[in-house]
């Protein structure tokens, strides 16, 4: 099950990240997880939110470059080696992980957000190995 990630381009200027968060707050968009990739010039803010479409629309209205990206949200065992095993499976199947970040930890299980070179194939393979993927609705209940 593919989930939607909200991505925002932010120039490295003071207060810009705060402005993005402010737009989300004003519109009641709740952030479940985020990752910020930064370079000297700009940053890419990747968000898992409760309402990505609304977030995108409102941020675009405020002039931000945004997009919705399909990502996999995977539930894995919260124990040493489980992420490594998952990545090995992908690598054995010639799938590149483009980026990844943690979403939540819940007792025995943890979730990660993952963007791969071939998302459909990645999901197919991982499902076979017993990894659970979460839908947008599942994420809301985390």
């Amino acid at each position: 099950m593919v989930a939607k990630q909200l991505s925002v381009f932010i120039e490295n200027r003071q207060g810009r990240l705060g402005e993005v968060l402010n737009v989300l707050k004003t519109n009641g968009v709740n952030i479940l997880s985020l990752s910020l990739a930064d370079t000297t010039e700009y940053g890419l803010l990747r968000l898992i939110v409760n309402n990505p479409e609304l977030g995108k629309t409102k941020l675009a209205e405020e002039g931000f470059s945004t997009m919705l990206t399909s990502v996999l949200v995977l539930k894995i065992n919260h124990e040493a080696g489980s992420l490594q095993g998952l990545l090995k499976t992908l690598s054995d199947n010639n799938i590149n992980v483009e980026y990844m970040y943690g979403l939540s930890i819940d007792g025995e299980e943890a979730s990660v957000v993952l963007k791969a070179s071939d998302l459909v194939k990645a999901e197919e393979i991982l499902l076979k190995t017993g990894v659970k993927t979460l839908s947008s609705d599942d994420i809301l209940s985390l």
Partner: protein
Amino acid sequence: MIWNEAKECMSRDELSSLQGARLVKLVDYVYHNVEFYRKKMQAVGLEPGDIKNIEDIVKLPFTTKDDLRDNYPFGLFAVPQSQIVRVHASSGTTGKATVVGYTRRDIEIWAECVARCFAMTGVTKNDIIQIAYGYGLFTGGLGAHYGAEKVGAMVVPMSTGNSKKLTTMMVDFGATAIACTPSYLLHLAEVLESENKIKDIKLKYAICGAEPWTEKMHKDIEERLHVSAHDIYGLSEVMGPGVACDCKFHTGLHVCEDHFYPEILNSATLTTQIPGETGELVFTTLTKEALPLIRYRTKDLTSIDYSTCQCGRTSARISRFKGRVDDMLIIRGVNVFPSQVEAALVDVEEVSPHYMIIVDRVNNLDTLEVQVEINPQYFTDEIRGIEALTKKISHVLNQALGLNPKVKIVEPQTLVRSEGKAVHVIDKRKLY
């Protein structure tokens, strides 16, 4: 020393009649050899016989950089290709280069003019001169080279790009003169200072040009390198470096007036300004064979002084440049028009047509940053995607400008939109 006293110190009356005689010959020459000039003269009802002396020059139509572009590459040449021994090229306003050609005699006269300039600064056959302008299509390197050889100096053709090698040779050879852009020379001063080599150099003369510079830079160069610094001016359309240069009294740049006739015009009315008043510099080449130019509008703003200089030369002096009529930028000696950036970006569909050029000087080297916005449909949330795009834009701009700009992608709607005359350039260097 005065290289050619007969020409550089002739009385103003004598000079006027020489210029008049040369102009009469030139007009007849271009009328019969260049269709472009013939048509232009015919359009205003002029015949060669109507030009009888130098004062009649005001009857002649102007020539612009656009005319050179429209006749790209060789349309304005007045001689068959077999007579051309060299071409140079500089940037045009919209991508196409401005191509200039020289006959063997043009090259000789060019060397003569540069020799006058070098001699004016103090350079003699006893000097060792490093030429650190770019050699190639740019007129700076080869132009200065031939002039320095004509003076008889020992020429070290450094070209540009290797400061380390340059400073090492400057010390090891005991170079006494250098020709390069003023900003590059200040950069070299920094390199020498950081290596504690100022005490080891024997430089006496710096001949700087190809870009505007301030009085402060002039002072800086003289104090830090213990040299006499001189401003050499030229433009490839007219010839290249050597059109004018300042002597040790630094009261303006002596124009090689027997070869290039200067006019200072009010850029709005195109009428002659009185001496001392600022206006657009316009040149007529009096002796050029390959690419003669009639009243070429340089777009450079300056004023003129016809009084005899303390050095004894009677040639007119143009003042330090006061700006440009158009929006041309000179970055590391390279002419850049914002329209070139605009034209290049049109070919990159991933970005919007809005852009901002930011020019600055960091450690005495010009920096060029071009800011662009990504078209929303091409936005990617992967850094490598944005980096690939930055690289692509950088490459496109490099091809168009001959300079490596830093490309910065900014958020949409942040660049100024055209409202009438849009500002596309922020020049932080304050050169004028």
